């Protein structure tokens, strides 16, 4: 109980997350990814670079980011919106423990709903455990971690975490991260692609960062956002009555 990960909070979080209809959305983007992969595999001749475009660009910038957004805001944001978080916070449990537990649950769920489907899609696309399939899997694991830290922080910062997160994904990750070279240093998609490409060595992945840069920046962003989220949760306020 004294560790950063709290089993009771984890259990409540999992039951809360899967008790909401929103949980059905977790599976939609990965299913679309696998479906597209199956269709392209059947339609395209081998040797063309479509796996990099679909599994890398589309998989990381759309499937990974959107699924992480839905999951990352579900693990904490929904409890804050409903007000049930008060019962958790009216105990001496450390606020860092709440944040770390929520983050771990979000990251693991995102890995299950995105990294595993990425691996499956990679296996289908390349016909086996190729460097590309493994690289995409590992890249998606890394992306799941960083994205969830960002979205858990957003949940504490604003009650409109999904809307703000969607704008962030569309404007920063999809547009600026891919087309403005300076923005890549602060793009989670680019961290994931950097990790994936260090294994896959696949030019069509559009990776703009080296493994070292991707790892260092990924760790910094994860730690900074989690520390900030903990600080904000420590200052969680209930609305009083104004005169």
């Amino acid at each position, binding site marked *: 109980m004294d560790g950063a990960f709290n089993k009771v909070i984890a259990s409540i979080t999992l039951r*809360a997350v899967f008790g909401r209809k929103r949980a059905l959305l977790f599976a939609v983007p990965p299913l679309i990814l696998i479906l597209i992969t199956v269709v392209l595999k059947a339609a395209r001749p081998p040797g063309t670079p479509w796996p990099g475009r679909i599994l890398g660009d589309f998989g990381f910038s759309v499937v990974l980011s959107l699924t992480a957004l839905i999951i990352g805001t579900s693990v904490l944001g929904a409890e804050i919106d409903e*007000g049930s978080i008060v019962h958790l916070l009216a105990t001496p449990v450390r606020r860092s423990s709440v944040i770390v537990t929520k983050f771990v649950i979000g990251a693991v769920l995102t890995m299950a709903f995105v990294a595993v489907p990425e691996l499956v899609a990679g296996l289908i696309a390349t016909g086996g455990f190729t460097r590309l399939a493994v690289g995409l899997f590992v890249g998606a694991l890394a992306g799941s971690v960083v994205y969830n830290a960002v979205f858990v922080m957003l949940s504490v910062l604003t009650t409109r975490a999904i809307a703000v997160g969607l704008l962030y994904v569309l404007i920063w990750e999809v547009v600026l991260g891919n087309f403005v070279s300076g923005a890549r240093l602060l793009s989670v998609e680019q961290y994931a692609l950097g990790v994936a490409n260090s294994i896959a060595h696949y030019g069509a992945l559009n990776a703009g960062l080296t493994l070292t840069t991707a790892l260092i920046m990924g760790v910094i962003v994860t730690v900074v956002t989690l520390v900030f989220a903990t600080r904000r949760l420590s200052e969680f306020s209930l609305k*009083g009555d104004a005169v």
Partner: protein
Amino acid sequence: MSTVELRNVSRWYGNVVAVNDITMTIGPGVTGLLGPNGAGKSTVLHLIAGFLAPSRGEVTVGGAASWRNPGIYRTVGLVPERDSVYAFLTGEEFVRDTATLHQLADPAGAARRAIAIADMADAQGRRISTYSKGMRQRIKVAAALVHDPQVLLLDEPFNGMDPRQRLHMMDLLIKLGAEGRTILLSSHILEEVEQLADTIQVIVSGRLAASGDFRAIRRLMTSRPHVFLVRSSDDRRLGSALIGRPAVTGVELTGGGLQVRASDFGAFSRELAGLARDQDIRLRELLPEDESLESVFAYLVES
């Protein structure tokens, strides 16, 4: 360990002042936090519970600042007004999980005890989503009591309760207060507060309008005449004798007796018996008519 203190506490939101320079000390026993809607009651409770930062001043529980201090929850139990609990858990799971988060040695045993205190043993195996509003209130009370706190804060605890549940809750709070715990509850149901609170804190427009025993507060409000109902062997004769006394400002003969308005509570109380004896009138009943919490509250809000 169980004293709650607010020292020159203000809380504002932009230009709107919700709580204005309040100083109060709340000790063991049951204290009622009263005020009209929007007066600042919930703000004060949230400040004490550590869920709101004071804009100015200091809020302490047992000598420790409540803001940004999760350690206070070892001695504080909170029953929030908002009806938002983990509805997918059973009542027993909710209270036991709360006990585990408090790092109690025997969470299951502590949960059993708290559920029994809140009279929820029969429904503890059901999901909270199936509970009535009153049952949700009681399971929240059980969760707030599970770590045996010295300070219990309750925001409108009687909301949604049926009369039997209200009586049970009142008995429980009186018992907890008698055990030396500090119980602070906000409520707009004055009847309940009157029956269970030892002292009241009245907040009007963000300011502390009155503090202490409400009967004593009423007696100090000398600008308002005190109203009594007197029944005697001859109300009409007693009325004409009373109207000649300087402490009496008005007399009305009603169907139920003699309604007397006195400007001086002490003088009237002293003179009435002597006057009745001199007039050979037998006093049968003397009831203060506006010493109820409701009339004290109404006076404070109007003034």
